[in-house]
């Protein structure tokens, strides 16, 4: 089933077309890798889906009821089930790892509900599990700002999982990670993709190969090629603009 469908979307920044008649869709469950040269519009694509950037034209349709995401605010889109990991890890440095996860765990989000919210045994259990998954069990009560760059990446991945989204948009998760951490990340993403839609932007070809999934190549704001990794890497245009650099 198609979970997210992007139709003919364009956006310009000061006359520069960052996204150019882009059409793309992803099913549920599905794992999808998105590659492309710097400035191809990969991050901008995620900005559009999550409501950060408003496109000049086009449609973004979501779910069974084909809801138009362009009419929703960022927080409504997130509540609809789209979670995002940013290219530059952005965790709340001033707060503990536990507080960061706790904010992300799927629960009611309104001010009044949050005001009277108290952690249940389930919430504790969930946070313990997540912390274990991202290797931060020992650091739960430390300030997030004191984590290393790689650990912040993990925390952000943990926050993404905590939200329990239907679609995970993951922007360059492996940056700053050791080879074994990369392996763990691919594992995690593949497992997540058994029940959800997961879209991963990466430059690391080894990483993409390990994901072993359909690949979309973006170039100058639109899709240049799509298919298996072997298929797209044989494409002459892809070689010219991306691989042959």
């Amino acid at each position: 089933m198609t979970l997210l469908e992007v139709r003919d979307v364009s956006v310009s920044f000061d006359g520069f077309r960052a996204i150019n008649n882009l059409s793309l869709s992803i099913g549920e469950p599905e794992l999808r890798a998105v590659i492309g040269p710097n400035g191809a519009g990969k991050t901008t694509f995620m900005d559009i889906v999550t409501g950060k950037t408003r496109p000049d034209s086009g449609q973004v349709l979501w779910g069974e009821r084909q809801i138009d995401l362009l009419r929703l605010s960022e927080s409504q889109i997130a509540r609809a089930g789209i979670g995002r990991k940013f290219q530059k890890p952005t965790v709340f440095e001033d707060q503990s790892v536990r507080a960061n996860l706790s904010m992300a765990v799927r629960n009611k989000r309104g001010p009044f509900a949050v005001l009277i919210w108290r952690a249940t045994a389930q919430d504790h259990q969930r946070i313990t599990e997540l912390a274990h998954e991202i290797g931060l069990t020992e650091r739960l009560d430390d300030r997030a700002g004191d984590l290393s760059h790689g650990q912040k990446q993990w925390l952000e991945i943990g926050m993404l999982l905590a939200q329990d989204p239907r679609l995970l948009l993951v922007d360059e998760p492996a940056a700053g990670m050791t080879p074994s951490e990369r392996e763990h990340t691919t594992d995690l993403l593949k497992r997540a993709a058994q029940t959800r839609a997961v879209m991963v932007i990466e430059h690391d070809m080894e990483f993409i190969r390990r994901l072993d999934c359909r690949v979309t190549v973006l170039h100058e704001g639109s899709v240049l090629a799509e298919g298996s990794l072997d298929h797209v890497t044989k494409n002459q245009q892809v070689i010219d603009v991306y691989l042959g650099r």
Partner: protein
Amino acid sequence: MTLINRPPVAATAPILAQGTQTPPPRRGFLRENPSIPWFLGLLTIFTLIVSVLSEGLGIGALSTSMVKILGMTLCLCLIAIAMDVVWGYCGILSLGHFAFFGLGGYAIGMWLMYARTEIVIRESLTGAVLPPTEAELSEAVAAQIFGVVGSSELPLIWSFAHSLPAQLALVVLVPGLLALVFGWLAFRSRVTGVYLSILTQAMTLALALYLFQNDTGLRGNNGLSGLQNIPGLFDIPQAVLAVWFLWASALALGLGYLLFAWIVSGKFGSVIRAIRDNEARVRFLGYNVEGYKLFVFTLTAIISAIAGALYYPQAGIINPAELAPIASIYLAVWVAIGGRGRLYGAVIGAATVSLLSSWLTGGGAPNIEIGAFRLMWADWWLVFLGLGFVAVTLFFPKGIGGLFDKIVRKAP
């Protein structure tokens, strides 16, 4: 792992066999916030000491005006913690919270003035042949109150001034509604940072200018006066009333502290601090940032108004100058000096700076001769306050309250 393999439809929480895993022991609210028992304890001791030393109920070592100054200071501490929550925790640098404080003062002042005037007029007419009708009485009250602005009619906004419950409700409703509408407009358009601060200043200025007008029904620049005389309590000496108000102010500050400490210590506090640090990121977690800001802005406006309603009966007079934009800027300075993002820091800042200010400008401190130059505190105080503010910002970004971290860390 079951963690992420659950089907998304039934995905809210893993089924947990009861007792398989014990959550971390939940510590009590007070244990987690040791500053609360400390603060409430010190506040109680302070209040008791002042009562014992007071002229009204104690040995008389403290003059009544001093007791009033201390009671008023407690009200300023209350608005300072409200400011700390909205600015220090939620990151909204509001430069308009004194407007809410003033509105609270006006709302209670209207009742104080009306009811007192009514009693006085009633008494003066007891000897009259015909008892006055209600309409005559109301007219006489209006003439008495509005004579100074050349009017003798009771303006519409005084419709409820005869009723204490109504005016108490207005203490909360008027500033609350103003904050709600203003905040809704500002936050919805995503006005943030300096622009929002300027907008709150503009609101404050507009309100002050409006109140300065003679024909807006609040006696223009005369303001409301004689507020220290509480209707129905004329027989009780000011010395005693001063202590009562000190108690009321201490109670309000204690309750306000508890309320805000509860709000900022839980997940709500986590979310608003996250909004302060990176509001865009909070949106992507699914939180409606504007709703949170509006909640915090409005709640702190209401608490500020309550602080104002307790302050002005002790001050005795309120006029539009009290709402001048500069007052709200001082409020931010107090909180910055005391230490943003910790409630007791705001209390320390407000108490220190406002007491120091009234001591130095009130002629309490001796002027200093430096050669031919004579340092007049009244003239120079603001200069020193400004320098102090700059110094704190540059060298102690955590303010005076930050010193406690050092003490606590050193303790075993």
